């Protein structure tokens, strides 16, 4: 009976009742949210974010990376490009030039924080591994490696540690102008290796 009554009600030409408004509101909200999500994903996929990185070809290992970074210790660390390394017994990046014996004794090491681990492979080859927690980015080993070896030790901003400041404190004082903005998807800039090798490393 009630059903019939309702059926026979005259159609009122009003704008929108409450139920319809809420219903339409939800639909629009979901639509906007989906569009926003797609937009954000598209932006993430197609637009480029930039991060700070230093160019090893320009770096002069002045030591400012260790002292000027807002992070303590610095977010700049030494990285080892193993493809370039000669695995030398006498490593210019590990040993002080005046070292009399090639042993791991502290007085023979160039690194002030003992952040390089030397591992025997087979006579006469050794592998050098950077202990990230100990490295302060001073670049002494990089200088030694570049001067006497193949240049396989290189300074880089470690992006797991870097705050990516709008204005990098090191970039402001870098005398070699070695700091630059690079795309976040190519955040590291190693010298002397191919793009494929860089991707792998």
């Amino acid at each position, binding site marked *: 009976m009630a059903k019939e009554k309702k059926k026979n009600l005259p159609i009122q030409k009003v704008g929108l009742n409450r139920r319809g408004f809420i219903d339409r509101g939800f639909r629009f909200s979901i639509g906007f949210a989906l569009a926003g999500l797609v937009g954000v994903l598209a932006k993430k996929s197609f637009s480029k974010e930039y991060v700070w990185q230093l160019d090893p070809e320009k770096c002069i290992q002045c030591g400012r990376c260790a002292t000027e970074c807002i992070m303590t210790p610095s977010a700049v660390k030494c990285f080892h490009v193993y493809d370039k390394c000669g695995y030398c*017994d006498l490593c210019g990046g590990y040993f002080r030039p005046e070292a*009399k014996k090639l*042993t*791991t004794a*502290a007085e023979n090491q160039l690194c002030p924080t003992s952040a390089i681990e030397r591992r*025997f492979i087979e006579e*006469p080859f050794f592998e050098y591994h950077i202990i990230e927690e100990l490295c302060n980015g001073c670049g002494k080993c990089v200088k030694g490696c570049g001067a*006497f070896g193949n240049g396989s030790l290189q300074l880089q901003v470690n992006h797991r540690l870097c705050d990516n400041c709008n204005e990098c404190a090191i970039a402001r004082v870098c005398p070699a102008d070695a700091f630059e903005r690079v795309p976040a998807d190519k955040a590291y800039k190693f010298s002397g290796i191919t793009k494929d090798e860089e991707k792998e490393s």
Partner: protein
Amino acid sequence: MIKKNFIGFLLTLIIFISISSFVWWFTYNPVKDLTASVPGLDNRPPRDESNEIVNIGERFDEYSTLSSNLTGKWTRFRGADYDNINKENIPLIDNWGDGPKIEWTVDLGEGHAAPVIYNGKVYILDYNELRKRDALRCFSLKTGEELWRRSYNVHVKRNHGMSRTVPAINEKYILTIGPRCHVMCTDPNNGDLLWGIDLVKEYNTEIPFWYTGQCPMIDGDLAILAPGGTSLIIAVDLATGKVVWETLNPDNWQMSHSSIMPMTLNGKKMYVYAAVGGICGISAEGDDRGKILWKTIDFSPTVVAPSPLILDNGNIFMTAGYGAGAILFNVAENNGAYSVKVIQKYIPKDGIGSEQQTPLLFNGRMFAILPKDAGGMRNQFVCCDPNDGKNILWTSGKEDRFGLGPYAIADGKFFILNDDGTLTIAKASTERFIFLDKAKIIDGMDAWGPLAFADGYLIMRDSKTMVCLNIMKD
């Protein structure tokens, strides 16, 4: 009563806290997380002195014979006069014209060994990587055809190259030192083996980093060698292989990559050797031959590759890489007693120096390519007064930088080889760097082996290929 109990409780608490604090302070180790950097952390095992039996010169292979009318000679490291200057009267090219005239190329084992040239034949101590043999190879200078090789099995691992020495030759003998200190004396005419010495076994020599770099010396009928180990210098009869005299090594100096250089001071002939440990002068003649006349430890880097440069009036210039810099010192003689006085000693960025090659002395000036740690002038070809290495007179400039490759003088021109196989010709001027021309000869790397000149030909190499260039002027 409550107050008394409270005071007692408070006192007990204070005593407890004090004792706890003391115990904590006493037992706390603020450096427990630190690791002492002591020898042995790299897990290097004790050195395993190889028991490999090496029969020096055991194999001989003959491929061809040659009679040549060429008479040119480049008889040892830095040539006959130890100065790296070719004195033949043959006009040589000023530029590469239509390109370098490459007469022949030969594949070699990886290394930096360089040849000597004698009467149309080229001799080089190569390492055969496939067969694992040191091989003295003899080629025709004109055609590059291999005539014979005298070899022996010895295991050498790749370590920035394997071979790195230059033989010494005269009419009757050719003398070589292999990467692992095996000395071999051979007849250069037919390749017959005369004798051999294993310096590691006989003299307890410690093989230098990256293997032997010392080039042997022939002085008359004697082979002059610096084993380090139990004897600093030995003289061996070339005909028999018997040791004629030897100099003991009281300071336990070690063999370096440097080669022995002759010097005459106030009529006294001596051998100058820069060992790992110090530099010394050894009497070369008379009743006291083999005696240490003078020595100095004022310059004793861990790695020494260049050889002493003998200047006038008892002055000696010595340089080395790896941050060592250079030293200029004077040796004076007074009634048979010798003294050493340091004139200059400086780090790489303060003056002329070299990492691998021995500087050149020409027309009263000294020339060298500065090492990578020489600051703004790094890798530049520079000139200075030999008695004042700190005062660089001129450089090749920022545009003309070179590497660790060799340089020599022939027909009034510098021939400077870059690491990548580019050969530059410059006028041998003492006034300024006068570039003439350059050409890429080999598309290679580590072209560090010394140059050899004879009969208008220049022989050069990179790490794996030896090339003979015709550099005669048309």
